[in-house]
């Protein structure tokens, strides 16, 4: 399924009709599961993920291969962030069987766990575990970014103190690694088809700073192309952060209006509409 890259240079429109700096539609909800401490549902284009957070709580019986970031379980001064990812069989076009020890999934789990452990105030919860389980319902590129965003939202919903949002998105470049053409445009938020054809990277930043928490690049790309891709990616993360922040605020306002929660002291003079 070759991507018609010639079309891009003519109209400057990508396969799905976006310009180079446009995100796909991001739709997010928080508090979707009543039984969990925190939960979220996030769509980035056709990539759909769900996240459930339980904890901080007493660590359960030790399982064999949890990916423990931010400390070594029950004995440590910091809470352990245990991430579990389930990729549904129906989530992509080809039904790929993934075993429990799939290294790609283990890597994703470890990445999310360590990225969040740096933002969450884990030192407030010694000897405890924060369980994050992520379910991938549909895949269309930018999987790691969607997982990080969903996990951040669910942690906010669970009320775990954190420094700031960890917002993630992907960035790519329009020419392949071999072509050393200077006119290559960076692209924001790649879908599955673009991820297959073009070099790209996943960036996650903390809040609206330029500080990069996660940077993953898995394709061959000229080193000179990195700066442009990183700049576009970091900028995209700021846009994503705004969107996540709006979701949280809207949900908060709705909950106050419905009377689910008390109006906070600082909110007395704030307009809720």
């Amino acid at each position, binding site marked *: 399924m070759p991507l018609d890259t010639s079309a891009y240079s003519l109209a400057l429109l990508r396969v799905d009709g976006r310009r180079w700096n446009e995100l796909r539609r991001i739709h997010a909800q928080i508090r979707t599961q009543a039984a969990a401490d925190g939960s979220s549902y996030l769509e980035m284009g056709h990539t759909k993920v769900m996240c459930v957070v339980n904890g901080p709580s007493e660590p359960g019986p*030790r399982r064999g291969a949890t990916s423990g970031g931010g400390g070594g379980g029950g004995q440590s001064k910091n809470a352990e962030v245990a991430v579990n990812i389930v990729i549904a069989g129906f989530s992509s076009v080809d039904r790929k069987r993934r075993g429990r020890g799939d290294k790609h999934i283990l*890597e994703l789990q*470890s990445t999310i766990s360590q990225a969040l452990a740096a933002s969450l105030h884990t030192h407030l919860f010694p000897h405890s575990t924060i369980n994050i389980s992520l379910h991938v319902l549909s895949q269309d590129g930018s999987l790691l970014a969607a997982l990080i965003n969903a996990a951040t939202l669910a942690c906010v919903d669970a009320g775990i103190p954190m420094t700031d949002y960890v917002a993630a998105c992907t960035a790519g470049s329009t020419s392949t690694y071999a072509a050393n053409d200077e006119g290559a445009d960076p692209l924001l938020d790649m879908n599955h088809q673009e991820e297959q054809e073009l070099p790209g*990277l996943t960036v996650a*930043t903390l809040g609206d700073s330029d500080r*990069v928490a996660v940077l*993953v690049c*898995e394709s061959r790309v000229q080193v000179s192309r990195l700066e442009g891709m*990183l700049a576009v990616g970091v900028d995209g993360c700021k846009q994503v952060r705004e969107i996540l922040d709006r979701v949280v605020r809207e949900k908060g306002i709705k909950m106050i209006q419905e009377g689910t929660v008390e109006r906070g002291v600082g909110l007395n003079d704030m307009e809720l509409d």
Partner: protein
Amino acid sequence: MPREAEPSANEKAFLLKALQDEQIRLDGREFDQYRPLELTFGDEYGVANVSLGKTKILAKASAEVTVPFADRPLDGIFTIATELSPMAAPHFEVNRPTETEVLLSRLLEKTVRRSGALDTESLCLVAGQKCWSVRVDVHVLSHDGNLTDAACFAVVAALRHFRKPDTSMENGVLTVYTPAEREPVPLGWLHSPFCVTWSFFGEEGETALLDADWMEEQVRVASVTISLNRHGEICQIAKLGGVPVEAVALLQCTSVALTKVKEFSTYLDDKLAEDAKRRDKGGFMAELRAENDRIVG
């Protein structure tokens, strides 16, 4: 499950204070200085012994003829197997991969295999029926930090040094020649990627060190592994979580990494040339060779 021994609070504080206040590392190296890297080849083809300070790694490449995967009839098989045994450090166990091992094998896989360093199509013998299966076994003999860079160097060195038996195809009959009959041939090698790992220290990761040893690795707040080849192509970047680091600092790390990779590349080329000279006792090698000259990147 044995847990890794952490350095004591005093040791940690000492290391961090020396770094931040005095700008000195415990072993007196510069911030962007590697420990002495040494590479020796074994008597057999495809055995590389790498030591980086006290970290020691043995990589062995081997090849056998097998049936290719049904979905890739024109490609050979290439696998990298990593094993962290209790020999390297007491908290590693056999048959139970730790997170370190999973991340190490993923990094090697992305750096060497997915970047297309080895031309797997040249391993095909009879489409859909016979192909070479090349396997590199990475053994960590001694663990003193920065396994990734050392292991990646060892894998690339072993593969570049390796020779597979020569074959010929006549009237549908495949012949594999022993080394006595025909001189073994090198693998189809396209480019040599190397890993460079930066470790970050401090509240906001403002201090960046190259080639952290085991103690520094236990104290660091974040790390990034950048894989490049000497043509300036990034094969992989992995900053898997940890404390956020300024984007500009990461770009600087990448450009320093490129100069380091060029040094590695030259060092490996020199060592390979030296070894070829050592093996070529009577000067017959050029005449025994059956292949044509080609440029190896």
